[in-house]
Structures are given as C-alpha cells and as structure tokens.
C-alpha cells in the first residue's frame, strides 16, 4: 500500500470531488440563478421545470461538497486549518447561503402553491443561489492566488479581508457563477418537455456560455500578477497546449450543438468543458495546495491515514456510483428512455 503514490491519489480524489460538485451541485445553484432570472411568457413554466429537475437530486449532489471538506481535513489537515482561518469570513457567508438556499427551496416545494409565502421562499432560494457560487469561487480564487497565509501580526483587514477582497478572487467568483449558470441552462434544455421551454434555456445557455470566454480571459490576465505560479504553468507547461485545445474544442462543440439544438451533445460537451477547466486549475496549481507556501506533500497526513483514506474512498466509490446511477436513471429524462425531438411535444414512450 505504501508504494502507491498516496499524496497524488488523495489530491486527485479531492479534485475529482470538486469537479463532481461543480458538475452536479453547481448546476443546482445555476438552476436557482435561472429561477431568479425567469422572464417572458413562460416564466412560471421555467421555474416549475427547474424545481422538478433539482428536487429529487439536490441533496445528493450537495454531499460532494462535504466529501471535499472531509478529504481536505483528513488528508491535508494543515491546509484545511489554514484555509479555515484565512477565509473565515467568505466561508461563513457561503454557509449562510448554503443554509438559506437548501431550506428555502425545500420550504417552497412543500408549501402551498401560489401564495405570497411561497413567492418569498422562492426569492430567498434564488438570491442565495446567486450569491453562494460567487463566494465559493471567491474562496477557490483566494487559495489559487496565494491569499491563504498565516495571519501573523497583520491587522484584521490585512489578514482576514484583503486576501479575498481582491480582483482575481472576485473574477474567479464571477467565473464560477457563470459556469454554474451555463451548466444549468444546458442541462435544462435536455430536461425541458416542450420545444419553447427548451428554446428559452437554449438562449440562456448560449448567452452564459458566450460570456464565459471574456470572463475567463480577464481571470487569466489577472492571474499573470495575482497567481503567477498558475499563469506560468498554463502558458508554459508541456500539457498546457493540449489542455487548451481540448477545452476550446469542448466549448466550441457545446455552443455549436446548442445552436443546432443538439441538446444532449451540448450537455456532454459542456460537462467535459467544465471538467477540463477544473482539472486545468488543479494541474496548474500542482503540487501547491496553498501556493506558494504549502505543497500537497508538506500538508499531507501520515501514510497510514492516506492509505486508509484512499481505501475508504475507493470502497465508497464502488458503493456510491451504482446508487448515484440508479438515482439519475430514475429521475433523468434522458436516461428514462423518453425521446424528444425538435418537433415533438411532451414525452413519447418507446
């Protein structure tokens, strides 16, 4: 067991859990954003589709975040402790968002239809869905930008506020929000029952997908000064051109497929694009957990712990993936055999 590259495996598991959280949990937040921005003659239908899509799965999707936290504090305890100290304020605000989003969504689902109370819960759900991803991205951006350092003798503002209240973390926050919204819109085109509704989310997906490009460019430009260790890797590393090529292809295919109303192709491409963006961040930051001071090797827990953790994650995955597959098989329209073409309205059973 000790011959295995345990630090690398644990880091990879952490990155995989982050990716899964972005792909699934992130899209649920994105759904809340589109609830907030629901407009036009079908606003009500848009909200209903979002609610029906995320109701059965959001709690399971949310557990990926807890898994990330658990891997961090078990495998890299000193990194977890430092992140918790430096990012106390944004993480606390993010938690408030997590609590309000989840509970308001549930309260709305189980309350009576069409009254003021329900609309108010809906508003809480939607606003929390908008704010939480920004804070999540902000925290990730602060880590990537080297903002997590010992508080030392600095003033309160210098130690606990300025590291995250900076252009680069903010740009990553906005990027995260856009990415979540884009994913949600793409997924919803597949889930929508009628063509008009799918079209609404197609437009939203095209806009948010298109907006990703300039925001990503700004973030990269800011990284040049704010996160030079990442910027250098993204420009100079041997794998960098391959990664950029793959990401750009996935992004182009996603937008093109959306344009052509090939929603399932778009969904696969958008998910691939997102996974590549997250992996690219992970690769570029490696081996730093908290650049530029704490590497994964320095932060790693003892071998006995890592070996058990990797073992538990492996066994856990064996149990988890079939169960998750079952969940999505039951509730995903795509997987339930319901075919929908551009001309058909409603489900047709095979």
């Amino acid at each position, binding site marked *: 067991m000790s011959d295995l590259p345990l630090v690398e495996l644990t880091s990879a598991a952490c990155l995989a859990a982050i990716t899964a959280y972005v792909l699934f949990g992130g899209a649920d937040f994105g759904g809340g954003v589109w609830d907030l921005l629901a407009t036009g003659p079908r606003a009500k239908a848009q909200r209903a589709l979002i609610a029906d899509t995320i109701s059965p799965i959001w*709690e399971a999707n949310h557990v990926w975040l807890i898994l990330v936290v658990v891997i961090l504090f078990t495998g890299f305890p000193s990194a977890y402790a430092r992140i918790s100290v430096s990012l106390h304020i944004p993480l606390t605000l993010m938690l408030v968002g997590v609590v309000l989003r989840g509970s308001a969504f549930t309260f709305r689902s189980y309350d009576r239809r069409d009254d003021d109370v329900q609309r108010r819960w809906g508003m809480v759900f939607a606003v929390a869905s908008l704010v939480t991803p920004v804070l999540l991205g902000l925290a990730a951006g602060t880590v990537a930008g080297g903002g997590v350092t010992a508080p030392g003798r600095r003033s309160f503002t210098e130690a606990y506020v300025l590291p995250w209240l900076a252009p680069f973390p903010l740009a990553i926050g906005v990027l995260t929000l856009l990415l979540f919204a884009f994913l949600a819109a793409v997924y919803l085109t597949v889930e929508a029952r009628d063509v008009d509704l799918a079209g609404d989310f197609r437009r939203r997906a095209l806009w948010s997908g298109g907006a990703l490009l300039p925001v990503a460019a700004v973030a990269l430009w800011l990284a040049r000064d704010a996160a030079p260790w990442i910027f250098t890797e993204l420009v100079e590393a041997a794998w960098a051109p391959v990664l950029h090529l793959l990401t750009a292809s996935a992004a182009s295919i996603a937008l093109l497929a959306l344009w052509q109303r090939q929603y399932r192709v778009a969904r696969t491409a958008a998910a691939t694009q997102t996974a590549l963006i997250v992996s690219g961040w992970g690769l570029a930051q490696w081996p730093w957990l908290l650049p530029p001071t704490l590497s994964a090797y320095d932060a790693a827990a003892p071998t006995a712990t890592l070996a058990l953790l990797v073992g538990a994650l492996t066994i856990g995955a064996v149990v988890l993936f079939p169960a998750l597959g079952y969940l999505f098989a039951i509730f995903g329209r795509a997987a339930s055999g319901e075919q929908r073409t551009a001309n058909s309205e409603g489900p047709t059973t095979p």
Partner: protein
Amino acid sequence: MTDLLAARSQMAMSLGFHIVFAVIGIGMPLLMVIAERRWQVTRDAHYLELARRWAKGTAILFAVGAVSGTVLSFELGLLWPGFMEFAGPIIGMPFSLEGFAFFMEAIFLGIYLYGWDRISERAHLVAGIMVAASGALSGVFVVIANAWMNAPTGFTLVNGVATGIDPIAALGTPAAFPQTLHMTLAAYAATGFGAAGIHAAMLLRQRANAFHLRGLRVALLMAIPAALLQPISGHHSAGFVAESQPAKFAAMESLFTTQARAPLLIGGWPDPERGEVRYGVELPGALSFLATNDFNATITGLDQVPRDEWPNVRVTHLAFQVMVGLGMFMIVAALLSLVAMLRQDDLGERPLLLKLLVLASPMGFLATEAGWVVTEVGRQPWVIQGVLRTADAVTPMPGLVVPFLGFTLLYIFLAVAVVWLLRRQILGAPDAVDWRRRHAPLVATTRHE
C-alpha cells in the same frame, strides 16, 4: 464575551440545532418504512397515508438537517482549526465513512420521496430501508468521532505532536460502543415519542380517528423498546465515563470528595466554591453501584482533579439530572403504553395515557440535548480529553461574537419557519391536490380504492 466563549457558544448552538434534525433523520425513516410495510401487508390505506405524511415531514426536516450538518463540517475548521489540524488525520476516517453514509441517505431519500410512481413497490420499500439504515449508520460514525474526543486512542503524543497515527485504533476507541448505542437508542426514543405525542394530541380531539390510532401504534412500536433499553445502555455508559473521565463523572453527580459507598444525588444545586451541594436527595452507595456495580466501591471526586481541569459543575450536574429525569418519565410512559397495548386497549379511549404521551412528546429531544451538554461541557476544559485544551484549538480570528449572533438569528428564523410550515402542512388540512400531484403513487391509489 471573549472569542473563546463566542466560539463555544456558536458550536453549542449549531450542534444543539442540528441534533434535533439529525435525530429525526435517524428515526423518521424507520417509522415511514414500518408504515409502508404495514400497508403492503394489510392494504389498509391509512398506513399508506401515514407513510406519505411522515415522508413529507421527513423531507422538510432532512433538508434542514443536511444544510445545518454542512455548517458543522465547516465550523469544525472555522472555529477549531487547531483541533482539526491535530485530529483530522486520526479521526478523518469516521467522518469519511459518514460522508458516504450521508450520500446513500440523500440518494435513497430522493428516490423514496419522488419515486412513488416510478419504481416498483418492492424497490420503493427497499429505498426506504436504505434511508433508515444509512441514516442510523451516519449517526453512528459521527458519534464515533465524538467518542474519540472523550477517549482518544490511535496515536502517541510526543512533545504535543501526534506520532504513530493509527486511524483504525482510533475508530476502535472504547467510548465508541457505549456512546453510539446510547445515542442511537436516544434517536429512536425521541422520534418515537415525538410522533406518538402528535398523534396522541390529535386523538384527544377525535377519539376514533383510525389514521391517528395507527400512527400512534407504529410510533410506540419504535419508542417503547428504545426507552426501555436506554437505562441499560445508560448504566453501561456511566460505568465507562466513571473509569475514563473521572472529572466528568464527578461533575455529573457533584461529587466533590473522593469516597467509598458514594451516594447518588438526585437534584440539588452544587456550589463548586465551597464544595457543597444544597437541596439534593442522596441515595447512599447508589453512585458507586452505577459506576462499578458495587455499592461499596470508591469513586473519584473532584478533589482528585486539579482545579483548572474542572468542568462547569453546575451545568454538567443540572444537565445530567434533566437527562435522567426525562429518561425516567419516558420509561414510565413506555411501560404504561406497553401494558395498554398488550391488553389490546383502545388507545383512543385512554385519555390519561394520551395526555401523558403528549407530555412526553418533546422529552426525548430535550433529554438528547441535555445528554450532549453532559458530554461536551463535562469534558471541558479539554476538546480532546487530556490531550488538547479547547482554548488552544480556537481560531485566532477575532470578533467571533458576530458569526455567533448571525448564526443564532439564522437558526431561530429557520426553527420558526419549520414549526410554522409543519403546522400548516402536516397538522393542518392537507392540500390534497398538491399532495397527490407530488407524492401519490397513482397506480397504488387506484389499485387500492
């Protein structure tokens, strides 16, 4: 308010809030599953309606439990980075396992709640069983992590640094068995009496209501064995605490002086400055028996503990009295209910018993809260018994009173919202159309009616 006190208050408040929902998340799925199984066997539609209403309540409460649990997983680091840095590699294992158990619970709860008309009857019941099993399991794993804080194992302390870390040995902390058994039984007793009390209250209004009669019986089916087994588990726990955490045990019973044939103190108001207790009733030798099964055994008092390592004696003692007192009341309620059920009485015609059950309704939850106060306050000043002081684990971040007040307000708001929603939705007239649209198994109802 110092930052340390603010951090402790925030942690206590967050745990105290979450534990209610965690307990319900363990107990309610079992009730749902029993009711659904009863329906499948008897085809008595009341049981199906019970399973559905309980599921609806579970859905609301589980969501709040899930998000407040997330808050806790972050707060461990946000408030106690020193603790997590030390303990993470040692007790990360039960937390990882809990993560997967929680995953399974969330997945199968989604399937249970929204899958009535999408999967077979059998698969639906199995999904419910998975929710109940993984809910209980995730509780067990979290309590193991806490048990380790009371009886740390699986490492060697060298100059304040943990070496020779063995996470398997940490999982095997001797506190794990007594604590997980006690907490799991507490969860079933609390939820069982909680539900029984609600149905009892409804029966007091409509004595012949078949729906509430069945609800009451299923709830009692879970509450009675849990409440009756709890004193055995409590006795075992007490013996373990007396041995491994003498300071906590002495504080629980305000035993200031080490003595043989130590008395069990019922009630009483301890004065730690003078080392006296006023207004208590003493049962000679009973404390020695509780700890060791021997009436004459010598029990360590607080005089053997350095003064700066005393927990808050008043709080620990009072909480222990409250827990035991409530536990006793639930045992009486369980015995009377058991007799009535064995005699096949019509429970609707036993108003006195119904009133007793209404009274017992919140007691399991209050006893659980009191028990956690005993465990946590009784361990102070340590966060890891004998290894790490709470004061050394707290974050250096100043101004912690702000997040404490913020989360307190947030949780008060949520608590009010949940109670209001449950009253409106579960107790009030159900909005039948919406309810059926959302949960009714179309096939099932047509088949039955």
